[in-house]
């Protein structure tokens, strides 16, 4: 990542031969980190598929208790935030720090929207006692092992929401650096890395939405 001296002027770390080398190393490191994220979520997708294959009726009955309209709204939030993030990255590549700040703020707003919808959904679940495993107490849904569906639901969307919140923190940090207009055509690595992370978070939700909300 290299340490930064004067605003706008980035000093390449001593062990890299050139700025391009350092940028490619950081990008490759980010891709490797995303590999670990894919495998981290793969465990949850296996747990979900076990439920889907062995308790199809239960999953079908339980998914009616999830409001697919809210899921669709969240999907739109995240897709739009991906767009604004893409604008921010291309802006940083052109050194247009003003536009980076503006686009990242839009991304933050959309992310907050996502979190608000999530909080509302969770409170609705707590109210109806649609809780994981042993705590499941809902009376209308009497399908066998219904608690397991909500265990998988809460763990998947919970960990994903945690990643969204972490992403918001990182975006905030990049906004602060962009306000000190540190980014220029030959140094925009932090924005590119944050962009990769954010697009990945959106990518995970693109799979979560149909799996949990649209169980046909």
């Amino acid at each position, binding site marked *: *990542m290299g340490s930064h001296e004067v605003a706008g002027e980035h000093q390449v770390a001593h062990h890299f031969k050139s700025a391009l080398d350092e940028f490619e190393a950081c990008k*490759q490191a980010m891709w490797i980190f995303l590999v670990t994220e894919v*495998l*981290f979520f793969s465990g949850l997708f296996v747990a979900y598929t076990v439920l889907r294959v062995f308790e199809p009726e239960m999953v079908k009955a339980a998914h009616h208790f999830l409001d697919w309209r809210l899921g669709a709204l969240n999907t739109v939030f995240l897709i739009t935030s991906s767009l604004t993030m893409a604008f921010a990255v291309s802006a940083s590549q052109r050194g247009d720090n003003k536009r980076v700040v503006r686009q990242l703020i839009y991304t933050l707003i959309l992310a907050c929207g996502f979190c608000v919808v999530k909080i509302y959904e969770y409170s609705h679940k707590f109210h109806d006692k649609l809780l994981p*495993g042993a705590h499941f107490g809902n009376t209308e849904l009497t399908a066998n*092992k219904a608690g397991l569906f909500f*265990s998988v639901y809460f763990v998947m969307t919970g960990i994903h929401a945690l990643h969204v919140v972490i992403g918001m923190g990182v975006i905030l940090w990049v906004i602060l650096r962009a306000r000190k207009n540190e980014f220029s055509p030959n140094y925009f690595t932090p924005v590119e890395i944050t962009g990769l992370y954010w697009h990945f978070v959106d990518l995970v939700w693109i799979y979560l939405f149909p799996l949990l909300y649209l169980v046909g």
Partner: protein
Amino acid sequence: MGHGVALAHGDNYINHSKGLKSWLNTLDHKRIGIMYLIAILSFFLVGGIFAMLIRLNLFSPGSTLVSPSKYNQLFTYHGAIMVFMVIIPMIPAAIGNMVLPMMLGAKDVAFPRWNLASFYVYLSGAAIACASLFLNGVDTGWTFYTPYSIRTSTSAVWVLLGAFVMGFSSILTGLNFVVSIHKLRAPGMGWGKMPLFLWALYGTSVIQILATPVLAITLLLAALERIVGIGIFDPALGGDPVLFQHFFWFYSHPAVYIMILPAMGVISEVVPVFSRKPIFGYTAIAMATFGIALVSFVVWGHHMFVSGQSEFANFLFSLITMFVAIPTGVKVFSWLGTMYKGSLHFHAPMLYAIGFIFVFTIGGMTGMFLATLATDVHLTDTYFVVAHFHYVMVGGSLLGFLAGLHYWFPKFSGKMYAETPAMIAAILINVGFNVTFFPQFILGVLGMPRRYADYLPQFTTLNRVSTVGSWIIAAGFLLVLFYLIHALLRGKKASDNPWKALTLEWQSPSPPPHENFLVEPVVTDGPYDYRGAKAGPI
């Protein structure tokens, strides 16, 4: 051979800056490697004490030393500390951190700050796990099988979360090494001219990156089972305990290759140097390393042949496991091929390498008993399995670590260790190891199950022989610790290249300067090009 002129050994990475603070927030990969080494060796001592207590308790039937439930905590801590805190980070993080950048001809790893972060993530994970010692312990075994790990009233959550945190340290090390190998190789060092230790670390890092996240999700779900009761692995709530075993072993089998591949890498470095001969079949070993790293992900089911897994899955896993044995065999034969017609020097690293090859062959062959379906039914979950994995872990990774420690000790301490005590210690450890663990093979075939605090009187003599063996091996380890510390304090000055090796790290003075090289190294010929004068005696 590079500059060859004895430079004034003024500035080096040890006296580059003084004071504890300069060590604790250093970005120098060599210092981070040494800090890792100290932490790992102290946890090794703690794990070793638990091992000695286990053997003492099993000296005679009737669990004399501790009560059965206390014994369960002993073997759980022995397993958890040795696996998560010692043997996984041992060679990659301690020796790998010190050696990899210099072998690449680079000034440091790709991300020095992430490297330091990985050390502190490791320490905090270890601290969280050890916190359970002061609460009410943990007695689930290092495998945390559900539903027992959910039902037990001991503080298993702490160890689960501790191991979860330590997993990130492993990922960070792997990530650092992969990017460094991709981006920081010295000019002229193509993939075909890279030393085999780097190939081994590359394979290990690939496994660390691809397998550790699944451990993270498994431990997280197990912790949630205990805290919230989500029921995915809990049969009382409709979950499937065998599914937990699938999740756990998807990480843990590749993890045993995280342990053994670096050790094989060290042996592939040591044997050619002390035979003064190029490694036999370089491409075969490099491809075997990468092959093992990939195939290790699709064989985990051989841990679960009798756990309730379906017959078809047993067939599949047994068949694929057989293909993991082939590259391992190729490596062992290639090391023998390297010794053939060489000029063998029996310094300590070579002694450990020879010990490694013999002991690892026994470990490998007994692995075949456990990969073959019929024999595994009788032998699994008995002391046969305990003996098998100690042969490949203690015999494999640990002897590989000791070989590497002695091989690079002159380079990084600037001092030479004394050869005679090293010889004695090597023999002590090899003998003690075989006396401890060979009787356990026979105990296993006779049917003594593992994790038993108490056993039938008929098993007494073999257990006693094993306990005596554990005293011998302990003596060997203490002797190693003694003479290495002695060498640090009052050892002879080591030359820049005491073993006349050809890999890049020997081109800089020992101990190396802060920036690793006085002159930017350029790779012209291979890492094992022992031709003509270069093949001269050490």
